[in-house]
């Protein structure tokens, strides 16, 4: 079955990125389509929508969204994309995303591109759209059965989890090095902890950047992108499998903000342009403070970010701020708090603006163990996020849970 992804866009052809978008879609077994509208539909749709942009192509986007909402055009998922730095398009992009979510059950992803966009940057997003459509039943799975393993090969760390009858019985993590070697190490340790031998394992699920390599090496039954896998892991760990939630995962290289309905993502954003808004910045801060990153959170919780203003919009400038602030004699506690606040603010500005935050907020991933960061995310959002136990293992847990669906 070819999944039809409806593209609502402005500027893709003249930015030389349309080809890349179609290539990304093709590589995950999907096809880009344009909902049919006639000239007469455009005026009606814009009037109904109530926002009249000056650019006609944006009006066309509105009409195409209306065709999807009215079920006049059949598609499985929606991709909304416009030029980076266009204010008019950014407003329409976000409001159309909301309109699609309010009026359809189609999964949607938004993206603002530059002319440098390559298909590989869209792969995970497109793959997630396809997974949500084509693996509906699998994603509805709420209990793990049998003995399964989840492997999460992330940009910073590699994690393994062994599960048996809906319980975690073994787990381990290590900083990522060689993809297969790191995974083998954590897998062996997790199996040892569980008291299980490899031959007893009934299924393996892999996710993260190294998922394809690991999937092939270990003969995994499930090889799936981290957006859907992490969502399942997060709601399972937080015991929020029903209803709505927002999952925030501040990763080593990119950040994810995902809204879920009954554990299945319906909108997500992924950032990755800026190291300043990721866990990497906190690692750099810890190194400069000559402490381990695991100590940064507790230190930050003792400080006040207002005493040491820092801007991590760019990690280079952020570190410059850090050096200046320390030079001014500010306390390590205040500086640590300011670094956490800066990352939280960046995530808010860059990711959370593109989704409608739903409650509860579940914060996961390795950085959720840095309590000072969780405090700051809570301060920025006005609500302290839930951090479930084993929150750094979401990907591995999701992999183990979903792969049991193949038994």
């Amino acid at each position: 079955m070819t999944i039809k992804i409806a593209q609502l866009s402005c500027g893709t052809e003249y930015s030389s990125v349309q080809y890349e978008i179609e290539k990304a879609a093709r590589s995950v077994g999907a096809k880009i389509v344009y909902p049919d509208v006639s000239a007469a539909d455009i005026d009606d749709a814009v009037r109904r929508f109530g926002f009249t942009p000056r650019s006609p192509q944006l009006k066309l986007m509105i009409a195409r969204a209306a065709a999807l909402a009215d079920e006049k055009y059949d598609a499985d998922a929606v991709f909304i994309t416009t030029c980076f730095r266009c204010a008019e398009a950014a407003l329409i992009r976000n409001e159309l995303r909301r309109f699609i979510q309010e009026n359809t059950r189609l999964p949607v992803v938004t993206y603002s591109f530059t002319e440098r966009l390559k298909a590989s940057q869209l792969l995970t997003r497109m793959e997630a759209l396809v997974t949500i459509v084509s693996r509906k039943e699998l994603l509805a799975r709420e209990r793990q059965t049998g003995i399964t393993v989840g492997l999460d090969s992330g940009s910073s760390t590699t994690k393994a989890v062994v599960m048996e009858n809906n319980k975690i019985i073994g787990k381990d993590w290590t900083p990522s090095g060689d993809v297969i070697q790191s995974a083998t190490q954590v897998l062996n340790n997790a199996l040892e902890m569980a008291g299980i031998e490899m031959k007893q394992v009934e299924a393996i699920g892999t996710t993260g950047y190294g998922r394809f390599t690991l999937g092939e090496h270990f003969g995994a039954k499930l090889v799936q992108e981290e957006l859907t896998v992490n969502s399942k892991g997060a709601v399972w760990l937080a015991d929020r499998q029903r209803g709505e939630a927002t999952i925030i995962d501040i990763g080593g290289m990119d950040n994810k903000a995902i809204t879920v309905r009954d554990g299945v993502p319906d909108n997500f954003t992924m950032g990755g342009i800026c190291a300043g808004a990721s866990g990497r910045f906190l690692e750099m801060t810890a190194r400069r403070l000559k402490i381990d990153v695991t100590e940064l959170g507790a230190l930050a919780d003792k400080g006040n970010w207002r005493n040491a203003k820092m801007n991590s919009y760019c990690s280079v400038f952020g570190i410059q701020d850090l050096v200046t602030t320390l030079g001014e004699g500010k306390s390590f506690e205040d500086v640590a708090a300011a670094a956490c606040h800066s990352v939280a603010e960046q995530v808010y500005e860059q990711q959370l603006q593109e989704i409608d935050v739903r409650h509860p907020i579940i914060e996961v991933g390795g950085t959720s163990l840095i309590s000072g960061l969780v405090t700051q995310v809570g301060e920025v959002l006005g609500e302290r996020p839930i951090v479930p136990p084993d929150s750094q293992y979401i990907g591995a847990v999701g992999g183990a849970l979903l792969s049991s669906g193949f038994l």
Partner: protein
Amino acid sequence: MKVFIDPPNSLVLYDLVERFGHQPLSAMAAIQERVDNLEVDMPPMNVSLDDVVKGLKYAGVEVPSGIRGRLALWGPMIEEADAAIIMDDCPYSFGCVGCERSNLMVKYLIKRRGIPALHVSYPEDDEQATNFVAQTKEFLEGLQ
């Protein structure tokens, strides 16, 4: 003479310019040049990264890529044109001319070139249409 039309993909303007004896410079020609270029494989339009970079001649890097890509196509034609016809209040301008900021810049580039330029209004009834055709004809016939 070479007459740039704005909107650059307009059927009506293209037809009238040709009908009254001149060569229209249009979006279609700029795109055909790329579509027929077998060395580039970037369908549907074969607008390449190089084109978007060339657009920097008309607008800085802080300007969205879609605008620079458009200007890279229309800009050279405006430079080549001897005259221009601009429909000011065109109610339809999708696709090639879907970005209002690019459209404003195109009008400005024509003005800056200082070539003879006729601004016409979109006709709303038969009387205005007659006026529009007469005005366009007189302008085109007056071009030496």
